[in-house]
């Protein structure tokens, strides 16, 4: 393998890594927004119907493969005349699926906060919303952090799927450069190391964050 080829491979993978990070961050932000909103509504709303609607959303998205959902979003919406760019479809698709996962994480976190906490908050005269915001939310968030870390690591890995809808991330670029150079094992091996580094960094970031939040 000569130097010029090596440079091209490194360039392709690094520019892919930037897109991978963009998609990961975008999808993570969207997933957190959807998940936290739904979990808050689920915690505060008393109506059966709201809980049911949220449940339908969560069950539907958690029991369908990410790739199938991405295809549905990217090709399906295009047929309806709504043509998303591959990056938008990637972030929206992974974010919506992530929203369902994050909802379950937060719900479990809020439920793990001892019941006495919300009772005590009500007893000292906090309104339900204030009790949720000041008492349940901060404690639930801390409990949710370890599984959120696992989700974030999984998300970075799942961004590899958006190569299938032509978003130019690591695997998409790797495939292109393999077609040009035929250095199959080298390129995919390097891609594996790149993902390993990314997932390690994300995992460690969450561990550090957890430590800072410890009592």
């Amino acid at each position, binding site marked *: 393998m000569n130097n010029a080829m090596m440079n091209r491979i490194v360039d392709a993978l690094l520019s892919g890594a930037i897109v991978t990070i963009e998609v990961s961050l975008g999808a993570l932000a969207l997933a957190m927004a959807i998940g936290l909103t739904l979990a808050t509504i689920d915690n505060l709303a008393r109506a059966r119907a709201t809980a049911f609607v949220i449940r339908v959303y969560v069950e539907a998205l958690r029991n369908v*493969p990410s790739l199938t959902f991405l*295809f549905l979003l990217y090709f399906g919406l295009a047929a309806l005349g709504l043509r998303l760019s591959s990056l938008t479809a990637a972030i929206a698709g992974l974010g919506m699926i992530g929203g369902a996962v994050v909802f*379950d994480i937060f719900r479990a976190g809020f439920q793990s906060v001892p019941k006495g906490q919300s009772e005590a908050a009500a007893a000292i005269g906090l309104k339900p919303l204030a009790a949720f915001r000041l008492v349940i939310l901060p404690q639930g968030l801390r409990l949710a952090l370890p*599984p959120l870390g696992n989700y974030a690591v999984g998300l970075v890995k799942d961004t*590899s799927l958006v190569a299938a809808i032509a978003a130019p991330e690591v695997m998409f670029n790797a495939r292109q450069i393999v077609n040009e150079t035929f250095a199959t094992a080298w390129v995919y091996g390097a891609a594996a190391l790149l993902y390993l580094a990314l997932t390690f960094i994300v*995992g460690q970031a969450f561990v550090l964050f957890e430590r800072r939040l410890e009592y």
Partner: protein
Amino acid sequence: MQFLETILANLADWAPRLSEALVTSLALTCAGFSLALVFGLSIEYFRNRSAASIRLIANVYVAVARGVPILVILYLIYFGLPASGIVVSAFAAGTIGLALVYGAYLSEVFRAGLGVIPRGQREAALAAGLTPAQTFRLVMLPQAIRHMLAPLLVNLISLLKDSSICALIAVPELTLTSRAIMSESFLPLHVFALTACLYFAMAWPASLAVRLVERRLARGPTRWRQPDAEANLLVQSI
């Protein structure tokens, strides 16, 4: 309504191909999961018993398999191996790739499940003259299985969903077939909605079963409770 009518009108054409693809998806899932069970148990075995170097290799393997996307591993097997002279069929590559990754996940399930059982059980069995293999089969496994049932099912569901990734190495399973149908019929929304429903029909009952098992276990007599270990386990496999 028109949406459903279009699907129904095309069903005669799509149904045979989709059902064939469905069988491929299920075969891929079953083969991958069976192999993953074997891998997972072996990894857990090596992590516990042998020399430090082997233990290190097993731990590194698990860390790598959990940190790299399945797609990369599938590409390495399907496109990378032929470069070194080993040609595998797409289905075999998919099965092996899924099993390699899920073997690592399942080894964690086995570790946590077996970890729930008090040390004294194993020691007593060995002291009573059972061989290590008998101890595992007759004493450890029957007690651990109830703790592992829910996380094993969760992993089976994930594996079913991840079998769709094998579409990208041209295994003719559900997602790839629906893509092929899409490019002939130009009805992407209809085809993928139908496919999503098919996956849902398989995965959702299993998800409900997980919740049922969890509720049963929460109620049943648990003599040695290690809620932390089990909770972590479920969370990991989410």
